[in-house]
């Protein structure tokens, strides 16, 4: 059963560009891919170890800067080198995670969140202060075409970049899934659920948290480097709180309790923000509202809802009728609020 899911996932990754061949769609798919890696790695912290860190964008962003600097040094290199740039990003992320994690994982729970928040602010402000390293407001741009084509691959076209991201996504997802099956992954779950008991059976919760933080930062670094390759730029806003919040929102909306949840969240989130932002200025409000609603009414996220729906064996009338009624009511409520919010936006725009 599980093997089938991975096969389907791989085939979907392969087939996606043929189903949506437009260049805009390809760029969206590439964004989804790198966001999926970020969301999955974030879920190693939030879902698996129970650490709500706001510092995730710092690891990804600093790795993006490392990737950009490396690419600019290797301007005359070969495309084969570019395929390894994400690994450089991963190492940068690991280093960043080792430093940040040392400070944040000394605490747990809410204190950890607050400290990571402060570190995000520190990193974002620090990056703006050092324009020589981080390019100030405009960021540092780069060129992903490193040299002459190798077997016809030079990463000049979006399709090739998409496949690069897809391959890394598949590998990272597989490794991260494998990690949940290892003893470390299991102990991380134990630390999340009951740190005292984990400590009693001889596992220092702080060390487990620190290890998971570093590993998660490694994958975040890969995701960050892929983002930099995709956009050919790394800027200070990649480090900031807004970016961290975005990853957090997407991951949680997708569902932190299931391995595939964050991937669904990344897909929905990127599509949501990219498509909706062309129609309305209020898309961030809708995203925020969606998040609050998920926290209040569906703590399992979209994945949780899907799993619950899939577990319904027989569609009886007694199940279907209240379900349909409730859905209709929710839709009506949502439509009404959207109408109200849009009217308000029109009014403030007119002022």
């Amino acid at each position, binding site marked *: 059963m599980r093997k089938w899911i991975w096969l389907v996932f791989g085939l979907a990754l392969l087939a996606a560009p043929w189903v949506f061949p437009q260049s805009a769609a390809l760029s969206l798919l590439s964004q989804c891919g790198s966001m999926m890696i970020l969301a999955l790695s974030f879920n190693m912290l939030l879902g698996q170890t129970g650490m*709500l860190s706001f510092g995730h964008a710092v690891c990804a962003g600093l790795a993006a800067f490392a990737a950009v600097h490396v690419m600019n040094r290797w301007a005359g290199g070969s495309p084969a080198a570019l395929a390894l740039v994400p690994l450089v990003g991963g190492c940068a992320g690991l280093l960043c995670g080792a430093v940040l994690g040392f*400070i944040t994982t000394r605490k747990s729970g809410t204190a950890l969140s607050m*400290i990571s928040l402060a570190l995000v602010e520190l990193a974002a402000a620090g990056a703006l202060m050092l324009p020589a390293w981080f390019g100030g407001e405009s960021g540092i741009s780069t060129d992903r075409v490193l040299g002459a084509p190798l077997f016809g691959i030079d990463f000049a076209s979006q399709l090739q970049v998409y496949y690069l991201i897809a391959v890394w996504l598949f590998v990272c997802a597989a490794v991260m899934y494998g990690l949940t099956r290892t003893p470390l992954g299991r102990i991380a779950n134990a630390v999340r659920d009951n740190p005292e008991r984990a400590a009693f059976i001889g596992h220092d919760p702080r060390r487990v948290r620190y290890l998971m933080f570093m590993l998660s930062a490694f994958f975040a670094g890969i995701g960050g480097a892929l983002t930099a390759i995709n956009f050919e730029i790394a800027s200070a806003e990649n480090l900031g709180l807004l970016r961290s919040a975005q990853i957090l929102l997407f991951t949680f909306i997708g569902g932190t309790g299931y391995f595939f949840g964050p991937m669904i969240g990344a897909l929905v989130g990127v599509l949501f923000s990219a498509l909706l932002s062309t129609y309305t200025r209020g898309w961030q409000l809708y*995203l925020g509202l969606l998040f609050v609603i998920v926290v209040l009414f569906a703590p399992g996220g979209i994945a949780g809802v899907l799993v619950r729906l899939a577990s319904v064996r027989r569609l009886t009338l007694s199940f279907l009728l209240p379900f349909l009624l409730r859905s209709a009511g929710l839709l009506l409520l949502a439509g009404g609020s959207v109408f109200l919010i849009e009217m308000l936006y029109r009014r*403030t725009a007119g002022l």
Partner: protein
Amino acid sequence: MEFTFITLLNGLSYGLLLFLLSSGLTLIFSMLGVLNFAHASFYMLGAYFAYAISVKLGFWPALLLAPLLVALLGALVERFGLRHVRRHGQVAELLFTFGLSYVIVELVQLAWGKSALPYAIPKQLDGPLFTFYSTTFPICRGFMMLLALLVLLAASWLLKRSRTGLLIQAALTHPQMVEALGHNVPRIFTLVFAAGCGLAGLAGVVGGNAFVTEPGMAAGVGSIIFVVVVVGGLGSLRGAFLASLLIAILQTYAVALDVSLAGGLAHWGVVLDPDAAVYPLLQLTLAQLAPVLPYLLLVLVMLLRPRGLSGVRD
């Protein structure tokens, strides 16, 4: 002397505003165990409500009504949001308030637009309180300090000496017992949350016109108050007081000082090569570093004293 004194006063007034903010946060955290991420958003709402009321009724009614409105909102948030999330644990509560802060900023922009509001200092508070040599100290800053001190005294009296405070403290340590004695514990929780939010709103009323009222004001002060609370020690009101003064004074002095490491080295006769990799880092002046000093302080405190200055619980 003049510089030192005026900077100290400016630092103190900013510090007391920070304390007004972080006291509400600490109150809510130490009582309910909820880390209210939307606390700075309530501060922002306080400023915006005060602006809207002061346009119609004047500043003094706004000073009373805006915090009450914010407190009412806080009560609604606790009653219809937080109470339902509580059974999912601390992280869920944190996530809920985090999402709330996101929504509130958007709603404020929806209602009042993205640009800064002309929320001015009222006439009675506009002017110099006193002049020291050639520098004047504005009345509104003095008013801010007075207000914060009054709140500090009132809160500590209410919690330590009054019957209500006794009941609140009892409800936190032994909720079942207090419930059995016929008190409504969930309502006490709602009231405490509302009071904390009201304090944030009050800070917004005075902070909004002393600084600036714009949609970014919550983000600007939001992480600083978390630093204050962590540095002071989670849940300790005295720690929050010490930390807010410390951070504010540190920051105000740093803003006024234009020294850098490179300058210091040059003073000692060491001249650096501008091409060296660390040159930009040494070139930074203390004034440029001022915004990140609280965060650096936090890292330092975390490394040396993970419990915070006077923390009692993790």
